[in-house]
C-alpha cells in the first residue's frame, strides 16, 4: 500500500514582513519595519484531517494560511501541500485547494451566482455543471434566492457563506478557512460548524484558523497552538487539555501589583503553581474550593484587596495562558 503524503507539511517556515501586512498595527513606528510573522514553523497535517490553528491575533495564523495557499511568499523554509511545493508548483497546489478568507472578498462586479459560476469556470468546469452546482451550494448556504442579487446587497454573514460556497464549488481536496466564524451570529456559527463536519465527513482535509477555544475544541481532530510565529503545542484537544497545568485555574484580580501576594502564595499548601502578571494572580489547584479562602487571605495579608475572582476548569484556554502568559482574545 502506498501511503499518501501528508496534506500539509511545513519545515522551518519563516516569514518576515518588511512593512506591516494590512491590518497589523505599526505600534507607533513609522517607515518600513521588520515584523517576524513566522519564526520557524513546523507543521504536519494528515490527509483527511480536521486541523485547527489556534492563536491570538498576530500569531501568524493568517500568514501560514497565506503561504500554504500561494498568496504569501515565505522568507525561508519549505511548505508542501499534498506533497507539492507551494513555490515551485503553485498551480498544482491551487488546483487542489479551496480558500475562505478572513474578510469576504467577493467579485463585486459580478452578481452572486456569477461569483460561483465564474470561479468554477476558472477551474475548467463546464458552464451547465457550474450553474447547477452553484445553485445547489447557494441553496445549501441558505441564500438560494439571492443568486441574482448584487453582492453588496448581501449581509456580512451572507457574504461569508458565499465565500464558503465559492471555496467548495470546484470540489477541492483541502479546504482552508481563515477565522470563518468571526462576525457570524451564534446560530450561523452553529450552522457553519455542522457544514464543516459534513465537508470533513466527505473526506476533505480541513485547515481552520480560529481564536475561539471552544470552536477548536469542538471541531478539530488536532490543534496547533501558535503564538508570535512559533508552534507552542500540537496535539488532539484531549491530549492538549491533559497537558494543561493540573487543576482548576484560580484567577484573582487585585487592586495593585500581585507579585508580593504571589510570592507568599507559592508556599501555600494545595497550590500546584502560581503565576503573576501585573495585578492578576493565577493559581492552579486540584481542589479550588479548599484553597480559595486561604488564597484570598494570603493576598490580603500581602496588603492587597481582591477585586475579582474567576475560576476556569482545565481547558485549552488554561493551557494557552500557561504556555504564553497571556489570554487568547
Amino acid at each position, binding site marked *: 500500500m502506498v501511503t*499518501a503524503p501528508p496534506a500539509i507539511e511545513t519545515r522551518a517556515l519563516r516569514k518576515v514582513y518588511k512593512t506591516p501586512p494590512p491590518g497589523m498595527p505599526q505600534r507607533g513606528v513609522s517607515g518600513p519595519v521588520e515584523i517576524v510573522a513566522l519564526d520557524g514553523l513546523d507543521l504536519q497535517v494528515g*490527509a483527511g484531517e480536521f486541523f485547527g490553528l489556534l492563536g491570538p491575533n498576530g500569531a501568524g495564523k493568517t500568514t501560514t494560511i497565506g503561504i500554504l495557499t500561494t498568496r504569501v*511568499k515565505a522568507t525561508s523554509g519549505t511548505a508542501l501541500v499534498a506533497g507539492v511545493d507551494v513555490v515551485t508548483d503553485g498551480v498544482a497546489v*491551487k*488546483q487542489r485547494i479551496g*480558500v475562505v478568507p478572513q474578510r469576504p*472578498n467577493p467579485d463585486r462586479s459580478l452578481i452572486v451566482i456569477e461569483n460561483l459560476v465564474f470561479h468554477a469556470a476558472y477551474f475548467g468546469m463546464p458552464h451547465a455543471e457550474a450553474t447547477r452546482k452553484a445553485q445547489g451550494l447557494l441553496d445549501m448556504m441558505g441564500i438560494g434566492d439571492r443568486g441574482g442579487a448584487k453582492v453588496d446587497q448581501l449581509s456580512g454573514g451572507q457574504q461569508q457563506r458565499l465565500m464558503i460556497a465559492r471555496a467548495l464549488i470546484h*470540489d477541492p481536496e483541502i479546504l482552508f478557512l481563515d477565522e470563518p466564524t468571526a462576525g457570524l451570529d451564534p446560530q450561523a456559527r452553529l450552522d457553519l460548524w455542522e457544514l464543516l463536519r459534513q465537508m470533513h465527513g466527505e*473526506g476533505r482535509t480541513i485547515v481552520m484558523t480560529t481564536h475561539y477555544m471552544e470552536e477548536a475544541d469542538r471541531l478539530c481532530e488536532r490543534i496547533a497552538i501558535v503564538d508570535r510565529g512559533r508552534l507552542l503545542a500540537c496535539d488532539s484537544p484531549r491530549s492538549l487539555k491533559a497537558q494543561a497545568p493540573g487543576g482548576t485555574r484560580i484567577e484573582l484580580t487585585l487592586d495593585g501589583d500581585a507579585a508580593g501576594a504571589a510570592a507568599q502564595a507559592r508556599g501555600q499548601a494545595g497550590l500546584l503553581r502560581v503565576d503573576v502578571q501585573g495585578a492578576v494572580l493565577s493559581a492552579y489547584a486540584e481542589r479550588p474550593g479548599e484553597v480559595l479562602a486561604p488564597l484570598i487571605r494570603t493576598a490580603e495579608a500581602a496588603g492587597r484587596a481582591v477585586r475579582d475572582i474567576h475560576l476556569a476548569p482545565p481547558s485549552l484556554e488554561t493551557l494557552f495562558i500557561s504556555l504564553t502568559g497571556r489570554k487568547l482574545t
Partner: protein
Amino acid sequence: MRPSRPPVPASRVFLALLARDLRVARREIVSFLVRSTLQPLLFVVVFGYLLPKMGFVQRGYGAALLPGILGISLALSSLQSVALPMMADFGWTREIEDRLLAPAPIRLVAAEKVVAGVIQGLVAALFVLPVARLIMGPIEALSLAHAGTLLGITLLGALAFSTLGLWMGTGIPPQQIGLMFSVIVAPMIFFGCAYYPWQGLTPVPVVKYAVLVNPLVYVSEGMRGALTPGLPHMPWELVVVALVVMSGVLWTAGIRTFERRAVS
C-alpha cells in the same frame, strides 16, 4: 485522500478569465464608452465642427485631427480598462483573489487583463471613428484603403496602453491614482501629436524630440499613416518598432508591480 480533478489547461483558465472581464465590460458598456470617448468627441465637436464653421480653423484641420482623436480614444479606453479595475482588485478586500487562486500562473491573470484592455481599446476605436467622421463631415484626404495597417496600429497601440495601464494600476498607490492620471494622462494627450502632426513640431526641436517618449505620438502618427496617407506622418516601420519596444518595457515593469501586489 480524495481524488483530484484533472489539471486544467492554462488556455482554458485564460478564456474563463477573459469571459469574466467581457461580461463585466458588456454590463458597463455605456459608462465605458462615455469615459473613454466623450472627451475626444467633444474635442471633435469644437475643433472639427464649430471652429471650422466659424472660420477660425481651416477646413483641412479635420484630416489632421481625426487620426489623433482615434488615438486618444484608444489610449484612454485601454489604459482605463486595465488600470481602474486594478484599484478595486487590489483594494482593501482584494477582490482579485479569486482569480489569483485560479489554477494558473498569476502572470496569466495579468496577461488576460492586458488582452481584455486591447479588446476594449478596439471597441472604443471602432465606435469613435464613424462618429467623429459624421461630426466633422467629409474629409478629403481620408482613405480606408489601408484598413489592415489601421487594424495593426490599433492593436499595437491598444497593447502599449493596456500594458501602461497594468503598470499604473498596480504601481501607483490607490489614493494617488487621481493625481497620477492628471499628471501622466493629461500631458500625454496634449503632447501626443493627436491634435497636430509630429512634423508640425519641427520649429520647436526640443518639444519635437522630447515627445518621443510618449507612446501616443506613435499611435497618432501611425493612425495618420493609415487613415490620411497623403499627409505628412512618421514611417510606419518606426511606429511599429516603437510601439513593440514600449509594450515590452511596460509589460516588464507592469508584471513586476503586479506580482509584488499579488503575492506579499
